[in-house]
């Protein structure tokens, strides 16, 4: 497999005090939509800035399409379209002027630059705002202009940092659809802490926590590793119905049942039991208890749960999180899903 992004023990320590990125090995396959997930302060933005050469690593190295990243790596930056969180744009310029400037900075000839910037402005829905100064733009308009700017040089890799932050539902939908479309022809890395976005658009995911990559691999692998045979049954009916149902469901072989809230039954099915048979039996019990089934939800696809469990597991590992360099070098290769 060839990598669009490959980092090797990438580390960033600010002023010898704050560890922002901690010995990180990140591999993003070419052509993937990769979600870089993590809570605030996990090191996602620092990682993007290291890839762009805006910051210099304290240790380790990073490569984009096999070329080393760095402050003077202009060829690497030419391969990247960067969208920062809440992009800070020159307010006194108009959209066309701004894109024109960036086009010149990206060394695009005029015959390519002019038609491309107009078609991009149309694509992001800013054609009506071309006579306005950027300082008058809303957050959504700024993000859309930032998206247009990141696509101006038609780069094969997009690094988008929190692209849906602060957007209204329509703008968010537009951005997610756009990522999905762009992902057909480009490699995209989306850094976010919004799990729902990752769930909708990404085929690969990396989870960062305290500057460290605690999981990296295909989305389905993340969900499979964290498989929980647990189902939530939302029921409606008499108040005494649910406690009785919990009691009866608990008697089904291989099933652990408990009440979630006043209307939810949570059943966990043992790994060796048939989930279909157990669920069929429980549904019969629901019917028999005179309750109405409102919804049934599997925890199997709950990305949020998987993500939180990853964080908890990482915390629970304690000192085992430390890996001796020699051992890691011998045991693990690039692309291993568990990090």
């Amino acid at each position, binding site marked *: 497999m060839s990598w669009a992004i490959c980092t090797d023990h990438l580390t960033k320590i*600010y002023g010898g005090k704050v560890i922002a990125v901690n010995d990180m090995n990140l591999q993003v396959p070419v052509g993937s939509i990769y979600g870089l997930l993590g809570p605030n302060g996990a090191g996602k933005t620092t990682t993007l*800035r290291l890839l*762009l050469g*805006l*910051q*210099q690593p304290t240790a380790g190295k990073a490569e984009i399409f096999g070329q080393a990243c760095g*402050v*003077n790596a*202009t*060829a690497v*930056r*030419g391969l*990247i379209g*960067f969208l*920062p969180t809440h*992009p*800070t*744009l*020159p307010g*006194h310029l108009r959209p066309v002027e*701004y894109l024109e*400037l*960036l086009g*010149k*900075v*990206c*060394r695009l000839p005029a015959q390519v630059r002019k038609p491309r910037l107009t078609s991009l402005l149309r694509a992001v829905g800013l054609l009506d705002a071309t006579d306005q100064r950027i300082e008058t733009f809303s957050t959504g308009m700024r993000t859309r202009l930032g998206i247009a*700017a990141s696509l101006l*040089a038609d780069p094969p890799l997009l690094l988008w940092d929190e692209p849906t932050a602060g957007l209204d539902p329509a703008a968010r939908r537009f951005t997610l659809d756009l990522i999905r479309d762009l992902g057909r022809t480009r490699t995209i890395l989306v850094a976010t802490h919004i799990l729902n976005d990752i769930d909708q658009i990404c085929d690969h995911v990396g989870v960062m926590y305290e500057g460290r990559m605690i999981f990296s691999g295909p989305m389905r692998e993340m969900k499979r590793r964290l498989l929980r045979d647990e189902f939530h049954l939302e029921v409606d009916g008499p108040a005494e119905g649910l406690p009785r149902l919990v009691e009866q469901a608990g008697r089904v072989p291989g099933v652990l049942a408990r009440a979630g809230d006043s209307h939810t039954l949570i059943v966990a099915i043992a790994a060796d039991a048939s989930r279909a048979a157990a669920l069929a039996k429980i549904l019969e019990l629901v019917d028999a208890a005179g309750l109405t089934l409102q919804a049934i939800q599997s925890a199997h696809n709950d990305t949020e749960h998987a993500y939180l469990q990853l964080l908890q597991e990482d915390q629970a590992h304690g000192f085992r999180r430390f890996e001796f360099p020699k051992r890691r070098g011998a045991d693990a290769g690039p692309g291993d899903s568990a990090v």
Partner: protein
Amino acid sequence: MPALAILQYELGSLWSSWLVRLWLIVAGLFALLSLAASWGQLQTAVLIGSLLFPFLVFPWFLVVILLGISPVTGSRLDALADGILSRPITRYEYLVASWAARVITVLAVFFLVITPCVLLGALAKRPVAADSVTWYGAFSAAALVSLVLTFLVSLGFLAGTLLRRPLVAAVVLIFVWYPINFVLHTFSLEEFSPISLNQALPTLLRTPWRDEPTGPDRKLSSADAEAMARQAAQFLSVLSGAPAQAPHRDSGDFFERGNYEDFSFWKVFLGYSIPTLASVALATWCFCRRDL
């Protein structure tokens, strides 16, 4: 092409800023007022020297420093990292283009303000004794003042890059520069002191292209020095809003100190150009190693 694009962008930003526009208007009005005030008093060389005083010493020194500080400080740095430096352009290209835009702007304001006033003062018939200002002297003086202004921009540029916060950089420069200025002046190091340079300008303006036997009119006469002192006092009284003081013979100490016969254009040129280059190089080196 990227550096040229940045240069155009920076020039556009500077000329659309209120600071540059206001400076141009106020400096123009101020120069015209100075010219009018000394119309019948100062010989051409001294008149030009007095017109250049605000640029070399006070108050336009502050504006020049502020313009130099701004490229990579404060909130501007965020926009810079997000918009420009994440593109295929080196930091070196950005900094040089940005510095060049500031130097061009400062020199453009300087020449736009000074040229009409100097031409008016030199070519018009005025009720003062004829002066022997030479073309060589005029060009040399213009070159030196341009160099000092370039140096000030570069100094602000370096301070802004090192200190990151524009206000801190401005305060540090003001508190460091003025004492140094007076120390240099006290020790008669004309090469490094704009105050001394300003006093030496009348001598330079009267210097011919080729050396000739030195006549009394090519030195800074005590009458010139006295006239300049009067002009400086008048200038400061205008600034403070106090009524202009009547001229008196004993107040010219400040300008009478200098006898600038040994003034060397090339010494001054090197004295400013080397620190200018060093400032730009150091600022670039620091910025290229910085995390954004």
